[in-house]
């Protein structure tokens, strides 16, 4: 079952952590994937308040590569700025080979008392990375995190 936040962790790669995400638009898919990443990072993602914002702008030739870079940016900000972040707004425009992303990330400094740490996610892998649009027009992605 997908959570109402549009993702679910699946029993997959033995060594690491795989999730599936979905959304009615590419932006909604990317936002759901960011929620999954936050849920992999802290045990209480609902306790992460939207107190600070960061803007992300990326361009890529492929949608799956763009998603990986987008999530990698959130991992980077966790270590470099000590922030727990999720996507508040994600706008994905254009088609391959020129796809642009503008996103507003929101969250707050990691507070392990309130957020409760889960996994110090190392990286967003390219293993089995897939972004597809299903027969109902919904966007779906499968992502494996190295933990």
């Amino acid at each position, binding site marked *: 079952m997908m959570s109402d936040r549009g993702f679910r962790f699946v029993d997959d790669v033995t*060594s690491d952590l795989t999730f599936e995400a979905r959304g009615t638009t590419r932006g909604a898919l990317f936002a759901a994937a960011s929620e999954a990443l936050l849920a992999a990072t802290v045990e209480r993602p609902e306790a992460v308040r939207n107190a600070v914002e960061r803007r992300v702008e990326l361009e890529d030739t492929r949608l799956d590569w763009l998603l990986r870079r987008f999530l990698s940016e959130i991992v980077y900000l966790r270590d470099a700025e000590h922030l727990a972040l999720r996507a508040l707004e994600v706008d994905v425009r254009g088609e391959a080979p020129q796809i642009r992303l503008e996103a507003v990330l929101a969250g707050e400094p990691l507070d392990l008392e309130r957020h409760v740490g889960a996994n110090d996610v190392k990286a967003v892998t390219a293993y089995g990375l897939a972004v597809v649009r299903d027969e109902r027009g919904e966007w779906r992605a499968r992502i494996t995190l190295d933990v």
Partner: protein
Amino acid sequence: MSVPATLTRVGPAEWEVPKGFRAGMRVPVRIFATEKLVQAMDDQVFIQAANVATLPGIVGSSLCMPDAHWGYGFPIGGVAAIDAEHGVISPGGIGFDINCGMRLVRSDLEWAEVEPKLGRLVNALAARVPAGVGSRGFVSLTRAEFEDVLREGARWAVRKGFGTPEDLVFTEAGGCFPGADPERVSAKAIARGQNQLGTLGSGNHYLEIQLLRSDGIFDRELATAFGLGQPGQVVLMFHCGSRGFGHQVATDYLDAFLRAMPKYGLEVIDPELACAPFASDDGRAYYAAMCCAANMAFANRQVILHRIREVFAEIFARPAESLGLATVYDVAHNTAKLETHAVGSRMRHLLVHRKGATRAFPPGHAELPAAYRATGQPVIIGGSMETGSYLLAGTATGSASFYSTAHGSGRTMSRTRARKLVRGSELQRAMRERGILVHAASMSGLAEEAGLAYKSVDEVAEATELAGLSRRVARLTPVGNVKG
């Protein structure tokens, strides 16, 4: 689990999957394991090892150690020796946690002295060696100082007073991979790692107080040579790597190689096997950056040992030097190293990718410190936090695996499944009742690392011996654990 129909037993603990198993295989797959371990391996281990066999320049076989399990790109426990002149380098063959590795530290302390202080020790170690999400280290560095760390590795740490010259002698490569070039790493990698020196991380990273029991000694002579003597002796083992710095280096170069492959005419079956010719600008750049990350990891483990010595000195109210806390060995798990190996009748210069595998040089190898020239390289196999770990030694017959052996006990189930089956708080209580005190940064992380999620470390260690990759020296029992 189902093994390939073409899997053939070629030795007591050695198996081969021939080239025809998957399209494009340049060499066969060779698996070192007992029948029980082979039968228990994920289907994906065989597929991933076969994918590795397609990499340009791979020599001999695509190898799997006894603890092999399903990873991303390479299987965990995968080894590939690739021709350094004509072959490729693949960040996926090393992993995101570059130079994730193990250090074993002996002590003169006996269990009777440590037992009454175990709780204080575990709590103090947890406080002084930060673990878990977003943890920051105590060493404050400028960018220029951090670049010194990247160039010098553990040598930097010892130069700054975080250890002794003897620690370097007993660290793989002396704690410093030559060829590191900070110009080849991104500003993002620096920003991620600059404040993380001295931290454990999470996942399967840990710092453990262990005990040598009377039934844990397999080879008394080698144990003595490695500084392990009497039953009741207390040792420390810890497992961690290059933290966010190495993760970002790998992230950056995976992305770069995915884009660069067409210009080299390269295609890969799995994007995590993205690669570039080692002799190209891209290949050399990644290698120089990977060496920086390997050095960050060596420095990280050296700084952590310094903190351990501080904690023990405080709690035992004695100088650390009087406690005999000395590095037995520090060994890398996730690297690509330039090594010379005999292949057929000639010596070849190879880039040996080890992902979740331990280098295990034999007695007499020129790269071993004088103290271990006669014994072979110490090998550390970390088991689950519930069961135990092993100290082993490299053997001459390890040439079959380019002198590589297992690194851990190997997972048998996904983290998601382990979390469904185990509650961290209950596991912590049950372990305490069994005499293992655990301090965990994350209860869900603790559940993911439950013993039931791993193969038997005893079977893995025995398999390495049956396969001739390494020989058992001592089994070490956990009594206190700081879990990342």
